[in-house]
């Protein structure tokens, strides 16, 4: 098997790399200071705002890539299942992909592969947005839910170009009751656009009445 060969060849990697991976990092004494620093930096530089839980019927059918191209954004359309279960046995009930990426927001699409699984899975706003940096991933800060609701509503019309149906309760579960369900996540250019770079969004899909059955996904996009 090819993977066995690759695993064997790991024995031949540079000894310094092997040794450096065996150095246990010191536990961080506090998480408050780095948070303040990162929040301050974010406020000064980008001040990204995110809001989720909006269900937009009219996203479907839009020319998805055109908007991205126009704004110099590339995207990967297929999400990856990031759990560590065996890939050959994993039941992939729901696919997630990126519909559209703009500086101020992203549209995700959840597809339930089999009709018998309609009304069995849901997602909500437990996503995390990361920016990839030399020092690892840096979470992009978000505003409190109430602030998002107040500030986002007047901006959405301009941002999307079409008036969406807004689910004001962003904590509400977004039930996948049909083949395809869209979710829009916005961060507002009013507070700053995302800087150039690679970003990752992680989001979970849950099974109704079965909190332990969670399918984590990660989606990647680049702002150039």
């Amino acid at each position, binding site marked *: 098997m*090819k*993977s066995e060969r690759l695993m*064997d060849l790991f024995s031949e990697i540079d000894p310094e*790399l092997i040794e450096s991976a*065996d150095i*246990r990092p010191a536990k961080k004494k506090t998480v408050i200071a780095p948070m303040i620093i990162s929040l301050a930096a974010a406020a000064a530089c980008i001040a990204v705002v995110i809001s989720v839980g909006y269900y937009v019927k009219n996203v479907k059918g839009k020319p998805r890539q055109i908007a991205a191209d126009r704004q110099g954004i590339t995207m990967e359309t297929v999400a990856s299942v*990031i759990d560590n279960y065996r890939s050959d046995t994993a039941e992939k009930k729901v696919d997630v992909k990126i519909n559209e990426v703009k500086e101020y927001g992203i549209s995700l699409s959840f597809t339930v592969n089999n009709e018998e699984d309609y009304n069995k899975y849901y997602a909500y706003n437990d996503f995390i947005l990361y920016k990839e940096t030399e020092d*690892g*991933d840096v979470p992009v800060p978000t505003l409190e839910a109430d602030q998002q609701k107040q500030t986002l509503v007047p901006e959405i019309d301009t941002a999307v170009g079409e008036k969406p149906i807004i689910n004001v309760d962003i904590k509400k579960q977004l039930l996948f009751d049909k083949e395809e369900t869209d979710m829009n996540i916005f961060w507002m250019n009013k507070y700053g656009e995302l800087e150039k770079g690679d970003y990752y969004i992680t989001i979970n899909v849950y099974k109704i009445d079965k909190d332990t059955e969670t399918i984590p996904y990660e989606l990647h996009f680049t702002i150039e």
Partner: protein
Amino acid sequence: MEDTQIIELYFQRSESAISETDQKYGAYCNTIAYNILQNSEDSEECQNDTYLKLWNTIPPTRPSNFKAFIGKIARNLALNLYEKHNAQKRGAGSVELALDELEECIPDANAAIPSEDSVVTECLNAFLKSLPAQHRNIFIRRYFYMASITEIADFFHMNENTVRVSLKRTRDKLKIFFEKEEIYL
């Protein structure tokens, strides 16, 4: 005792070389073996075989990085023992899981001629060195030390999901890197 002093004991054919090695690197060696074999007796056997191999290898070899040298020997012996025990059965052990994950790094080119070991290793080293330190160390702990997700998360004070995400991304990147460098396995 310093590594150079322990190595010198091997060169002098002093049996205290083994006890000094055991004292300094016994737990390290056992952890690597246990991560692969998941069995205390087998890990101990592997640990003893590692000392024997060291005894037979030094001299003439004078390792520049003694710790990594021991780690490589322990890992290879443990993988051999694992293969011997599991020749007839394929289960869902830690090695099988890691192998399944590594499948994701294999470029899709069945017809291509496999690259030589030295070329793949060189490419692997270049790839690992290009990674941010944190992602690199997580990757090496998983596929060299064969540590579980939980152990890695604990080791680096991270949550398990972050470790999974990091591993997944690095596997994807490695596949792209191999394809770009035209490396075939």
